[in-house]
């Protein structure tokens, strides 16, 4: 009886040890990624940590969210990925600022540090709010560029390829917006 008990104890101990070492090996296995970082397409190049800015409920300010974004190698693709994530909205209870249905059509920048972002018409036609929201939206776009693209110091907003005077009838976006003015 005693002998059987000891055999069971030893076998159990060995099983526990084996189990833990097995778990340790699995958890430290290289290349194991959380589900949201699993490659979505064959052309996947990398994962990038970015800061995204969203509105704060009940305040005139913005809050940054740090997020990992799947991006491709080309800089313009990276910009599109960053803004696609911004358009997807906040994850931490903050306030989404873009009108629903807004899309980024094209992105490119000059060697003088100006980033051009070309949006669909929903950005202006779907915007129905006052200065606080418009100011927050512009600041969100500009600060997201300034924080994640170190070579960008100005952001020019276009709508379907054309410059626009304002997004919602208030703030001048006809000329490039300086990143330092919107910090």
């Amino acid at each position, binding site marked *: 009886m005693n002998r059987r008990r000891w055999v069971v104890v030893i076998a159990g101990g060995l099983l526990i040890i084996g189990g833990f070492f097995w778990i340790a090996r699995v*958890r430290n296995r*290289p290349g194991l990624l959380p589900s949201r970082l699993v490659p979505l397409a064959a052309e996947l190049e990398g994962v990038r940590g970015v800061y995204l800015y969203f509105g704060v409920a*009940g305040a005139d300010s913005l809050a940054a969210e740090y997020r990992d974004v799947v991006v491709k190698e080309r800089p313009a693709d990276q910009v599109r990925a960053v803004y696609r994530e911004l358009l997807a909205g906040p994850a931490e209870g903050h306030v989404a600022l873009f009108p629903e249905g807004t899309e980024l059509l094209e992105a490119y920048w000059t060697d003088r540090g100006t980033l051009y972002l070309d949006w669909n018409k929903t950005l202006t036609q779907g915007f129905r709010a*006052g*200065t606080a929201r418009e100011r927050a939206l512009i600041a969100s776009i500009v600060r997201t560029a300034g924080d994640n693209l170190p070579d960008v110091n100005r952001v020019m907003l276009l709508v379907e390829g054309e410059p626009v005077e*304002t997004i919602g009838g208030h703030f001048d976006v*006809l000329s490039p917006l300086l990143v330092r003015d919107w910090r």
Partner: protein
Amino acid sequence: MIGAIRAHLLLPFAALALVLALAGIPIALGLPVAPPIVVVYPEPRAPERITPITLRGVRYLSTSDLARVFRATKYWRPELRKLSMRLGEHTIRLTVDSPIILVDEAARNIVYPPRLVQGAIYVPESAVGPLIDWGLVTDAVWDGPARMIRFRSPVHTVRQAQLWVRGRVTEISATLLRAIPPRVLYATPAEVRLLFEGGTLDSARVFSGGAIANATIREVPDGVDLRLILAPGSEGYSLTVVSNRLRLAITDDHDLVQSGAFTRLVPVPIGGPDGKLRVVVLDPGHGGNDKGASLPGRAVEKDVALDLARALRSELQDRLGVRVILTRDGDSDVSLRRRAEVANESGGDLFISLHFDDEGSLRSGGFRVYTLSPTALTGTGERLPIVLESDGGSAEMRPWDFAQASVSGASMAVGQGVADALARSFPQTTIIFRTGRIRVLEPIASAAVFLECGPAPRGGPEAMSLQGYSIREIARTVAQAIHDLARGGRA
């Protein structure tokens, strides 16, 4: 008997197995066994803790935590097992399981290799100090024994603002750490306002004494804003910067002003050349297809803004007898350019754009008063206007989009006056006065203000009325403020 001996022999092995199993639990689960690192930021940001994990007896930090703390961006290439991090101008490239990293293309040995755990890259805690020593992070220090990352406060360029009363002269002094010449935005018998463009302030302050009823110095997006509300009877001011020391003096001594030692304080110039206010242009926002914001009670901004413009027109005509022009007097589409043309072509002395807002999930309620930022068109105001002279007289030419640059100080004085009047009339609500690049204001050649009225926090016309937000009362308050400013007094 043999069984008993075997049991005695096996007992130590069983105990050892259990000890190993218990010791293996944290390793197996990757639980943090090291105490957290404290990150201390300058006020008002609260400190935070980042928790290392222990891998094979070495403390490791997540690169996600490091990127967040040092505001770096990171880029992970899973197929190459390489991670690059960008800290400002610097780039760090590291490869999983290799202790050699590239810092701005120079190879460095961090002894313990980066590890990939649960899809995240970890670097040894001992690499934090070198990051700072190598100059990659310049605004923080690593306190190894205390295991603390401490961010330094930025060095401010405007410091130690103080108030002195010397007889009939009251003086504000401050130290300027670099040459940032203060710009006088306006200097009236009621207020003096200075802007240190691009400056930063050590601490916001409020003080009073002597000829200064109330002074505030604070940081704003354009720089450092110094606003002095003067006691009645103030006559002149003097501004000097000597050896990086600012001296702004206010006096109520008429003789000092007469002697030329002080500049005379004059009312805000919102009228024509003779100082008389003749034409006010009111601009109800939006219109036609552009409905503006949706307001409580199914109202839309374009209609309510027109109602307010009409009410304000009546008030201004009754109180001041001035000519009032509306940029639209119906539900029509009027471009921002056309609104400015109406104001400039009519020779308007004052332009007020009227708006309403329902902020939804952002802050709601209250009033926002904007004027064009005095720095928005920096560099254009100095070379304006171009004066053309001929036998028949002279004319001024100003680039259309920069017309507001030369009168932005007067606009700020009016905007502040309107904001103060609203604060007195509606003490229960929030009043925000700020500057910005408001498109409709940029081409206006006269003093120009943008007023946005938010509904009461609980919304609805009933609440607006109950809390004193009726359009008639807003119109009365704004008209009274303009009346007071036009008469040279404080609004």
